[in-house]
């Protein structure tokens, strides 16, 4: 264990007690990155100079008594969040070398809270994927087994937190892109209610589904970072205007809470170890005082199809701006339409092109109602079913991912099987509800298993309390074997 392996809360306590400095922690994190990056490739950009300067500055300020919630804590950002003057590529050739002229709202808030920005993490291009293999700059590997994927699309963030090359990271979650890689990497991944965290400065994939959230080692850390980045932002018209939830009740346990187990999240495609671990956790929650109920959400499985129409449809418009006219890659042509077409053909990878085509098709005259319109009706149906479920129970639990980390390359030739890995996470995006993945154990191959807790819209308090109890009951302390070399 080095300072790179601390949780955010522990690091903050040590910093406050004068037992360590931000520089010491930041150097440990950078050292860990230097040791692991060749094998893992979590980062696209490491801002070593900026991070060290910011750590020193944080220590100076602390000596003068200026302390904020995340003072001196090294945090990584998924490379689809705009950072003023720091390259932001979304893992795409089309944004190679692009330096935004502004900080995303979450970045501004992290900086204001004293966080040290380590760098920008790898992702599936424009967050489209579930394995971080769709990166124009090469895949990220899972710290638990570098022959396996870290999940995606926030695979770089999840692997960095897992490997200790950041104490925490931000990810974005459109269909599970925070929770699924967190599950596959044995860390906590939290997608807040849609609108809780500003999307201003997050390069949009599917605007009605995208939500930024933390990837951390503990539930407490997730809550802490959420409290820093959340809250109304006048620059995001879809940002929720109400108060942030009270998060002080994390340790209140589950006594008296009603927990629903989603029936549809089991069976074909679900690994037995995953199902067993989740069922055992449900039983332990009962023992801890919760009441358990089987809940059926019939639309659960077709939600996946709806998602793969709605998200590409929105993406087809969101990604239209990458045309070579104002920024990013430009492939010259004899006239402007040719320039745009050549730029886009050269700049987007195959999965992004596939989704743009799919989305364009789904919105086209004559197909709109059968595809996009129908998908929206399914979305409404799902929301109604989840609302009904949340009248009976306080939270829902289910596996985060049907499987643990899969071999690299196993699904790259079969987009549909890759899409299926999101079956458990997509409903929370379609419904806009909060959900969190918490590591609860290892499968027979020693790979992490995550359980997902879904809460009511704006119901983060209860959801986090259940997550914290699961964390306490699971006592998941295992670390990726590769880290033994550097402890």
């Amino acid at each position, binding site marked *: 264990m080095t300072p790179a392996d601390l949780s955010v809360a522990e690091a903050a306590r040590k910093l406050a007690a004068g037992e360590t400095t931000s520089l010491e922690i930041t150097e440990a994190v950078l050292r860990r990155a230097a040791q692991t990056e060749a094998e893992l490739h979590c980062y696209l950009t490491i801002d070593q100079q900026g991070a060290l300067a910011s750590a020193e500055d944080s220590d100076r300020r602390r000596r003068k008594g200026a302390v904020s919630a995340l003072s001196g804590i090294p945090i990584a950002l998924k490379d689809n969040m705009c950072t003023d003057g720091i390259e932001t590529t979304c893992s795409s050739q089309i944004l190679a070398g692009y330096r935004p002229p502004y900080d995303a709202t979450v970045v501004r808030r992290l900086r204001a809270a004293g966080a040290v920005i380590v760098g920008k993490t790898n992702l599936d291009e424009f967050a489209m994927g579930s394995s971080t293999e769709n990166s124009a700059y090469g895949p990220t590997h899972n710290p638990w087994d570098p022959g396996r994927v870290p999940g995606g699309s926030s695979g770089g963030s999840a692997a960095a937190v897992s490997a200790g090359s950041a104490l925490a990271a931000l990810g974005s979650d459109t269909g599970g892109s925070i929770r699924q890689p967190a599950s596959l990497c044995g860390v906590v991944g939290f997608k807040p209610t849609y609108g809780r965290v500003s999307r201003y400065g997050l390069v949009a994939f599917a605007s009605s589904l995208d939500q930024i959230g933390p990837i951390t080692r503990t539930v407490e850390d997730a809550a802490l970072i959420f409290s820093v980045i959340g809250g109304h932002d006048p620059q995001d*018209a879809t940002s929720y205007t109400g108060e942030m939830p009270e998060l002080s009740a994390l340790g209140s346990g589950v006594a008296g809470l009603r927990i629903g187990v989603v029936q549809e999240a089991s069976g074909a495609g679900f690994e037995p170890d995953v199902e067993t671990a989740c069922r055992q956790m449900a039983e332990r929650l009962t023992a801890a005082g919760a009441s358990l109920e089987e809940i059926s959400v019939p639309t659960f499985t077709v939600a996946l199809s709806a998602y793969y129409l709605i998200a590409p449809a929105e993406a087809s*418009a969101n990604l239209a701006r990458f045309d070579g006219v104002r920024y990013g890659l430009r492939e010259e042509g004899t006239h402007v339409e040719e320039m745009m077409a050549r730029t886009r053909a050269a700049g987007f990878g195959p999965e992004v092109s596939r989704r743009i085509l799919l989305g364009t098709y789904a919105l086209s005259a004559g197909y709109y109602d059968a595809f996009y319109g129908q998908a929206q009706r399914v979305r409404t149906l799902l929301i109604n079913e989840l609302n009904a479920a949340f009248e009976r129970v306080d939270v829902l639990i289910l596996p985060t991912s049907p499987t643990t980390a899969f071999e690299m390359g196993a699904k790259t030739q079969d987009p549909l099987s890759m899409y299926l890995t999101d079956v458990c996470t997509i409903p929370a995006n379609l419904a806009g509800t909060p959900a969190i993945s918490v590591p609860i154990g290892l499968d027979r191959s020693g790979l992490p298993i995550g359980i997902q807790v879904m809460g009511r819209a704006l119901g983060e308090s209860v959801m986090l309390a259940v997550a914290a109890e699961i964390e306490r009951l699971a006592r998941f302390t295992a670390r990726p074997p590769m880290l033994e070399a550097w402890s």
Partner: protein
Amino acid sequence: MNADWEPVIGIETHVELATASKMFCGCPVTFGAPPNTAVCPTCLGLPGALPVPNRRAIESIIAIGLALECQVAPRSVFHRKNYFYADLPKNYQISQYDLPVCVGGGLEFILDGEQVAVGIERAHMEEDTGKTIHRGGGGRLHSSSGSLLDFNRSGVPLVEIVSRPDLRSAEQARAYAQELRAVVAALGVSDAKLEEGSIRFDANVSVRPVGSSPLGVKVEIKNMNSFRSLERAVASEIRRQIDLLEGGGTVVQETRHWDEEAGVTHGMRVKEGSSDYRYFTEPDLVPMVVDEDWRLAIAATLPELPAARRSRYLGLGVEHQVVGSLLSAEQGLVDLFEAGLAAGADPRLAANWVSGEVVAWLRRQDHPPALGNLTGQHLAELSDMVNEGLVSASAAKDVLAGVLAGEGGPAEVAGRRDLLQISDRGALQTAIDEVLAVNQDAVARLASGDQKPFGFLVGQVMKSTGGKADPKLVTEMLRSRLGSAS
């Protein structure tokens, strides 16, 4: 116009709102600023930037909707209209589709003394695009060597007002456009200047055999930058379609550009993209909710509209044609006239001056004209002077020119320019006596019943006073004098 064919015309009007900031960001709305100086991540379509609606713009479109007697939707929705164009930074325009802010309304105007009613289909809110400037090749796309983009206009709030195809002639199209401009100007929501593009009219034109009810194939014509060119363009397009149909051809649905110099419309050289805009709900924005309180608050601030103003002016005795020009005049001129009325000016005189001399004077100015020197109070003073016979109607125009030029108030200018009338009966009596004395033969002819020399005598008196005599008074005095003599 061929008597066998009936033109059917609808007008789409784009109104740039004169809000302080753009539709979805805080950048200022400017005209003529250096290129790309009023821009930010949002209106440049940078990755990650998001739109936030401008409340003032929403209030403006609601005001327009109320003025056009539209229903203001309690809930309306923004959509994305997808198409690729270099000056459209996101390659989609935030617009409205099936749930616009304003639906169903109407506008009436008077043409040649007849009232014409035009239905309004809808008015919706959207954002403007940037501007493409083609370099070289005389500014035309097909011969230019490259293009420059200016995004200052990108994101400026735009209201699109769609009329029903209720117009039946080029003259009506023009009159509708003028009336609509007057409404928008009266509301104060836009500069409404055609020459600056802050109000733009596109016309959908088709023709059909008289008595037939199905609509013909419509052609959209663009690029008209004055009311006159709108009328000419529509007339030319009607002619073109009739000629085409009578020659056995068919009209193709297309967009044509009006060529002001050649006086014809041209089909667009560049092939038009597919018209499938793949509209879908803008997920970055929430539905716009207009509750009754808000709507009523806006309704309470609506100024007097041109139709009401027209009947008020007519009621004050202002001539029909003069009312017409006042209503289509710039807001500053209308304000001047209103100030004159408030100060007690004679409505007819003040209206004639404002719509005649003042407009003509402004047109002669090189630099952006200002009305600073002429006030409503001046109009009132000058009209009093005319009505009291202190200056003649024609001298009053010179006085006006002096006031506009900054020479002082009407009395001062009239004195300095020696334009005061002789209304002193004593002085006039002397002049009349002298004229009669040297024109005995004319007096004699009048006495014999020949009325012809009377005008001659009036003229002689005017001449002997250097034109400053009040002709009405001279006539009256001469008549009573000769009457008593005969």
